């Protein structure tokens, strides 16, 4: 007969064929447990129990385990009871109930002890009912050991037989009040904690007894449980937190046990948040655990993690309390433990306010740069040492004590994301200085475009369009961003940074007159550089377009030499784009080619109308009206018409096939002045504008799908034409020269609509002011919560960093303090004043600058054709 040690040795000796060996062993053990010899039975059970741990079921041996616990020898009993909790099913419970009762009431405390331990594990409902009385009887045993085990076992029986609570609870309560032995008392408190957590309000009567224990117990184990218990009861007894404050503060100050300290802090931050003086002490203790200096330079990861966890609960309610420990939190960002870093960053995210945002962001960015530098130096030293062993060693070292490079990268992403999302959250609510925001965004764009390029791009464009005061600064930074931009090649970052790249290009084109004349050539050469060709097509198209806009805008500013250089360069590079596989890029390039033959001032006029921010919700408010039937558009008719006249056919060819662009006569023709017009596209001949924008028709069918689009479209005709309110688009698109003006305006509007659709999510609309006619109050988007300018809190106070003096935004001019937000009492009033002033100012500006009747305003303000993308995309 093999013993258990033999079996274990055997398994170890049969590496590789353990299964087989164990199979044999189980067979042998099965024989053994059927043996008449109790010793042999015991060995068999012992072996089966061991194999159970390795994953071999032993339920079949249950009956023999019952036999074993009936043995008179303690050795057998002990093994039997141990095995019982691994193999007993209901059948065996019934079989063994009598034996359990016999052992529980045994005069030997150890036999009673093992039986109670086993009973706690195996009892089912029937067994609980049958034995509860016996177990409760043991509550009054003279031996603490028995009392302790009885209390714990009673709880387990209670779980199976919940009805018994009526008898168990009074017994427990008596034990709680009368118990003198600390470990029995601990067991009672332990059981009560479990019960209270299940249904706290049924146990409020326990408070006085628990309170006494809290004041008099010297066992930290018991105190931890009592504190937890009383904490839970706080939620149901409003007077309790006040009562607890004193004792808890005292324990907090006196105890050296971290576990008790943390239990008290945990209770304070979860159940007693109203209690400020206790909370203050807790925060101090937490700060000690978080800051590295307290524990000799190295934080205990467990304590630090728990502290951060508790602090995040405080921060949720009292951000300022947590904000006091900013420095310690920031220090946690360099911790070796990833979880701690994340936790600390979470808390920091919740601490952003108008006042501290600059500081926090500066620290976070510094941190990101630092880790970046560290990475780089580490990489350098790696390559420098080259010795393979050393490399491996350092790698291993880093893996053990620091973050893996994956974690490091993931964390950096989180930091950058935290900065961007918190700075821009709630419609830029926290930002008082948009120039600073632009600076941060471009800075992150330069270094981390691969991580959050598209988010940065969105916000960059958003701010530049909505805050006119920072446009020139945005352009300045965009120039450096674009010229310094490194385009990385890996897949994710590629799309991310490409998005940023195209938005930067768009910004430069849109606000090209802000570009420093000295840099114009550089900008254009970047926009047209060959590496652009490797970018996604939408970026290429944006770049080509921006290059043209920069040239046309700057035509009057730069010397003719520079301009010529620029044009020459664009021309030389255009060929790459003209032969692009993407129709969008090709189209754009061809158009640029044609327009470059024109007088650039004329071209500039095409881009002249100003972009104004309009809430994305605005357009939806414009009702669909008129007789415009957008369903049957004109494409087939138009084509027929085109075929009718030679020139138009030529134009059709032109747009169909790029080759025609080489016909200079045509290009000249396009801009033939036939009849000057009073709007911004005045140089375009009516007929030609028809032709040139013939492609609009291709996209027109899409327009009706957007109610807002259709509407603006309609209104545009109305205003631009200045006569017939009900001009239908189909009429306007007729071959009638006299409608040319309207048509050109319509085109402009369509662009706007397209843009609008594209960007509606960003609250940045470019739309005509046509709406102002119907809704004069909403001229500037006031009254719509989606609009930056309606929200006084979001109103920018703009500082021009470049010159270090304030360009005060129109509103701030009069009331510098308005953005201080220090006196919340005055806030509403200021809001009102500001709103009023702002409105006044804007109106005034429009009048003086444009000096035109409101009627023509729609045309002026009509969205700019900054990108031809959508228009010509088919």
């Amino acid at each position, binding site marked *: 007969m093999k013993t*258990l040690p033999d079996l*274990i040795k055997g398994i170890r000796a049969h590496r590789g064929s353990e299964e087989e060996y164990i199979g044999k062993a189980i067979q042998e053990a099965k024989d053994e447990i059927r043996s008449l010899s109790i010793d042999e039975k015991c060995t068999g059970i012992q072996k089966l*129990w*061991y194999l*159970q*741990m*390795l*994953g*071999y*079921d*032993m339920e079949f041996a249950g009956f023999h385990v019952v036999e074993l616990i009936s043995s*008179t*020898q*303690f*050795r057998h009993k*002990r*093994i039997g009871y*141990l095995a019982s909790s691994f193999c007993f099913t209901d059948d065996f419970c019934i079989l063994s109930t009598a034996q359990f009762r016999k052992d529980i009431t045994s005069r*030997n405390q*150890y036999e009673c*002890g*093992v039986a*109670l*331990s086993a009973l*706690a*594990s195996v009892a089912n409902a029937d067994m609980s009912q049958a034995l509860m009385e016996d177990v409760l009887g043991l509550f009054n045993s003279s031996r603490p*050991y028995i009392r*302790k085990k009885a209390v*714990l*076992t009673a*709880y*387990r029986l209670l779980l199976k037989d919940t009805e018994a609570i009526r008898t168990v609870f009074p017994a427990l309560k008596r034990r709680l009040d009368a118990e003198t032995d600390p*470990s029995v008392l*601990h*067991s009672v408190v*332990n*059981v009560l*904690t*479990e019960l209270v*957590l299940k249904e706290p309000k049924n146990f409020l009567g326990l408070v006085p007894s628990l309170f006494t224990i809290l004041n008099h117990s010297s*066992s930290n*184990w018991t105190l*931890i449980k009592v504190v*937890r218990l009383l904490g839970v009861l706080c939620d149901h007894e409003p007077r309790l937190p006040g009562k607890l404050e004193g004792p808890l503060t005292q324990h907090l100050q006196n105890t050296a046990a*971290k*576990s008790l300290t*943390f*239990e008290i802090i*945990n209770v304070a931050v979860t159940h007693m948040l109203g209690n400020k003086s206790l909370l203050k002490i807790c925060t101090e203790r937490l700060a000690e655990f978080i800051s590295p200096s307290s524990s000799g330079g190295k934080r205990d*990861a*467990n304590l630090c*993690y*728990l502290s951060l966890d508790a602090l995040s609960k405080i921060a949720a309610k009292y951000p300022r309390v947590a904000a006091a420990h900013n420095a310690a939190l920031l220090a946690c960002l360099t911790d*070796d*433990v990833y*979880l*701690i870093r994340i936790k600390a960053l979470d808390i920091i995210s919740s601490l952003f306010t108008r006042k501290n945002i600059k500081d926090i962001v500066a620290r976070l960015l510094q941190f990101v740069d630092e880790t970046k530098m560290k990475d780089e130096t580490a990489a350098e030293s790696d390559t420098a040492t080259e010795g393979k062993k050393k490399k491996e060693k350092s790698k291993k070292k880093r*893996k*053990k*004590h620091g973050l893996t490079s994956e974690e490091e990268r993931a964390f950096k992403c989180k930091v950058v994301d935290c900065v961007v999302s918190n700075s821009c959250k709630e419609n830029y609510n926290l930002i008082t200085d948009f120039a600073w925001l632009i600076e941060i965004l471009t800075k992150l764009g330069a270094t981390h475009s691969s991580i959050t390029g598209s988010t940065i791009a969105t916000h960059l464009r958003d701010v530049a369009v909505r805050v006119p005061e920072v446009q020139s600064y945005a352009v300045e930074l965009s120039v450096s961003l674009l010229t310094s931009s490194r385009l990385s090649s890996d897949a994710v970052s590629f799309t991310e940074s490409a998005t940023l790249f195209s938005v930067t290009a768009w910004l430069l084109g849109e606000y090209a007159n802000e570009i420093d004349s000295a840099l114009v050539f550089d900008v254009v050469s970047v926009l047209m550089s060959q590496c652009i060709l490797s970018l996604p097509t939408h970026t290429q198209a944006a770049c080509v377009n921006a290059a043209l806009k920069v040239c046309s805008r700057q035509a009057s500013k730069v010397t003719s030499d520079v301009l010529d250089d620029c044009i020459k360069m664009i021309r030389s590079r255009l060929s790459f784009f003209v032969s692009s596989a993407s129709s969008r890029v090709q189209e754009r390039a061809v158009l640029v080619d044609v327009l470059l033959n024109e007088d650039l001032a004329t071209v500039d006029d095409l881009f002249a109308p100003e972009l104004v921010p309009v809430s994305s919700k605005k357009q939806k408010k414009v009702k669909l009206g008129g007789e415009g039937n957008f369903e049957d558009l004109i494409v087939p008719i138009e084509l027929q018409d085109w075929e009718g006249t030679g020139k138009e056919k030529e134009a059709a060819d032109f747009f169909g096939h790029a080759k025609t662009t080489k016909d200079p006569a045509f290009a000249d023709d396009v801009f033939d002045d036939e009849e000057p017009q009073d709007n911004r596209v005045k140089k375009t001949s009516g007929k030609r504008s028809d032709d040139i924008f013939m492609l609009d028709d291709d996209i027109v069918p899409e327009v009706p799908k957007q109610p807002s689009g259709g509407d603006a479209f309609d209104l545009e005709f109305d205003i631009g034409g200045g006569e017939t309110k009900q001009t239908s688009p189909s009429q306007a698109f007729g071959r009638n020269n006299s409608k040319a003006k309207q048509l050109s305006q319509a085109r402009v509007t369509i662009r706007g609509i397209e843009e609008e659709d594209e960007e509606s999510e960003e609250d940045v609309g470019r739309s005509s002011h046509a709406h102002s006619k119907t809704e004069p109050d909403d001229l500037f988007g006031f009254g719509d919560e989606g609009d930056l300018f309606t929200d006084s809190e979001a109103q920018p106070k703009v500082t021009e960093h470049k010159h270090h003096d304030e360009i005060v935004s129109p509103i701030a001019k009069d009331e510098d303090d308005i953005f201080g937000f220090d006196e919340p009492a005055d806030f509403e009033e200021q809001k009102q004043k500001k709103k009023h002033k702002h409105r006044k100012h804007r109106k005034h500006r429009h009048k003086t600058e444009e000096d035109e009747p409101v009627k023509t305003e729609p045309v002026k303000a009509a969205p700019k054709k900054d990108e031809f993308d959508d228009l010509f995309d088919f």
Partner: protein
Amino acid sequence: MIEAVIVVNNHGLPRLLRFYEDYTTAEQQKVMGRVYEILTKRKDTSCNFLSGDVGLKNPNTRVIFRHYATLYFAFVIDESESPLAIMDLIHIYVEALDLAFQSVCELDLIFNADKANFILDEVLCGGLEAETDIKQVTSVYEAMNLHEKGKG
């Protein structure tokens, strides 16, 4: 309460498994494997608390563990326990083992798995802390051994 006690070595071999709710042998092995998988991914400098579902009936469990030489001692607990206290409790259990086996090592646990369980039964009873005094634990254990011999 403490839902399970799992002692597993660095290679994922179980040295002691104790579940205080009903789980089949296969389920126990699954949970053990899961816990081991999580534990080996941890660095020694990381926290000793892991929250997350390890496949027990109660999904809101935390694994509190200590790593001693070749062995991981992991207690799976529910919300009612204090993680720091459980850390201490694990240490108490290991010290009790140490006293019982005179500087315990993995081999002791392999060949005396039953004894390790007996000691655990003195520290925990039905998933609740029964005794937190090392001396008390050891003296009861010794007394039981004497009792076993006296009768046997």
